[in-house]
């Protein structure tokens, strides 16, 4: 498996002694192991992600991409194989809050104001009140919601809520950001806007991102590498490098190279043997 080939501008970051952001070897996950209804969710997964890289996981429903993300997050335990995050076992990385996480549902606490939602990870880390407040406001500026600190989550639009969720995930400045279809519930316009902003935020904070999505253009636009997965059992079938440079903007979406990569991902997905053809993949 190529480790840094697609990292492009990030190759320099990984050249030093810094540990890989994510290192997965021989990973296998079986749900309901040793029971009649055992399901092989993932087999033979090897994947290494360099610091600063943006990697998308894409594949039809049931290919185990969310499971893979949860294994990296240590929300699930692997049946066999190892997951290292930041050079540590995943469990240790979770204890140390080495990653932040954002889900399709923003998952904001409705009883907390925007700023107090962002403070949550810092509270759990035991930060003092003044420090927390200062950092939360800094994060709000980063996601361009500086004027909404005192608002309650239900007073915000879906896109704004998702931005708060990203600010919360990044509040403790984790080196790694795990995202499970964070823009899946947003309309197309908001979605493209959020994608551009996510890239800016990641560039500014030099955060590594693992991003689960159903959308081919989203994966191509955002990523240095797109990991294509297939179901039954869930595994990695192909890893596609996306060399669109580091400063992508709205023009990138109209570049020939962009369409070339979309076609490459689409063909990789089409190549998946699954009888009825790929389901659950959006072409938009």
């Amino acid at each position, binding site marked *: 498996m190529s480790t840094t080939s697609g990292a492009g501008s990030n190759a320099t970051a990984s050249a030093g002694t810094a540990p890989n952001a994510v290192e997965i070897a021989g990973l296998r996950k079986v749900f309901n192991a040793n029971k009649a209804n055992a399901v092989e969710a993932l087999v033979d997964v090897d994947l290494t992600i360099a610091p600063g890289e943006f990697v998308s996981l894409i594949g039809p429903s049931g290919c185990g991409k969310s499971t893979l993300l949860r294994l990296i997050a240590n*929300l699930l335990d692997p049946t066999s194989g190892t997951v290292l995050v930041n050079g540590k076992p995943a469990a240790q990385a*979770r204890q140390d*809050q080495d990653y932040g996480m954002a*889900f399709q*549902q923003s*998952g904001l606490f*409705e009883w907390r104001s925007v700023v107090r939602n962002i403070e949550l990870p810092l509270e*759990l880390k035991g930060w003092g009140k003044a420090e927390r407040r200062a950092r939360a406001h800094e994060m709000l500026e980063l996601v361009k919601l500086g004027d909404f600190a005192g608002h309650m989550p239900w007073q915000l639009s879906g896109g704004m809520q998702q931005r708060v969720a990203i600010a919360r995930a990044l509040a403790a400045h984790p080196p790694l950001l795990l995202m499970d279809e964070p823009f899946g519930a947003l309309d197309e316009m908001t979605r493209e806007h959020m994608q551009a902003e996510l890239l800016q935020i990641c560039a500014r904070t030099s955060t590594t991102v693992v991003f689960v999505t159903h959308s081919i253009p989203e994966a191509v636009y955002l990523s240095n590498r797109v990991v294509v997965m297939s179901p039954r059992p869930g595994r990695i079938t192909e890893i596609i490098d996306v060399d669109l440079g580091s400063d992508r903007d709205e023009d990138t979406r109209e570049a020939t190279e962009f369409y070339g990569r979309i076609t490459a991902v689409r063909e990789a997905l089409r190549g998946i043997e699954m009888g009825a053809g790929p389901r659950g993949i959006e072409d938009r």
Partner: protein
Amino acid sequence: MIHRLRRAAMFVVAMLLVVALWEGYKAIGPAKGGDVLGFGILPRTNDQVMPHVWSMVTGLFDPAQRQGDQTVLSVVLGGAWYSFRIALVGFAGGVAGGMAIAVVLTRFRLAERAILPYLVISQTVPLIALAPLVAGWGGKLQIGDWVWPKWMSAAVLGAFLAFFPVAVGTLRGLKSPNAASLELMDSLAASWWRTLVKLRFPSAVPYIVPALKLGGAGAVVGVVVAEISTGLKGGIGRLIIEYSRQATSEPTKVFTSIFGAALLGLTMAAIVACIDLALMRNRPKESAS
């Protein structure tokens, strides 16, 4: 503001309606009761059974004893105040106990299946039967210099009725957070205890508030019934019994004691309403979302 005024006005209108119904029936109903198709279901309307509303009100200002300057009103208010304090203790105890049970049942899945049926059964035991038992056990309790006060038995029975809705409501609420929120707390390496405090309890508030309303009413009923069946003196329950015995000579008196009991219930409801307002401010309104 207008909304609140309207609600206050509706309350007054409802009161007047009850008075009008009472007086209306008294005016047209048969004085010695009547039969409908052979069943004696029409209540008598004489002053003995259905005194005029105004004589109930003026009855409040009669002296409570033949010789003495304490009015019925002050005796009733005193009794209601006495019972109210016991009910508050019972309510607080019931809420604390109910929440504690809910936390334990949330923590230990197995305990839920083992304990929950007993909680349900506990509520089918008639309070009247339980009250003398609790009073009997309490009477034997003495820890050092501290002796179980008699009123404590009434508070315990109030708590007994209050804890159940609170336990059930809190239990549902503690289980209400969705998988994503729980995963978020997991991803932040939050312990079970901190997840309880930062996620489960706040999520449970919308379930706890209606449970408190039921619990508050339960505490009042428990205390009043316990006063009657354990013969505890000084409270409104005892007063209702005392005054109904005097109904032949002073028919309005028993109604004044019922006013006191109603006032007690309303005060408890008001306290719970204040808790509701305090806890639910800054929450999404039902119309939003």
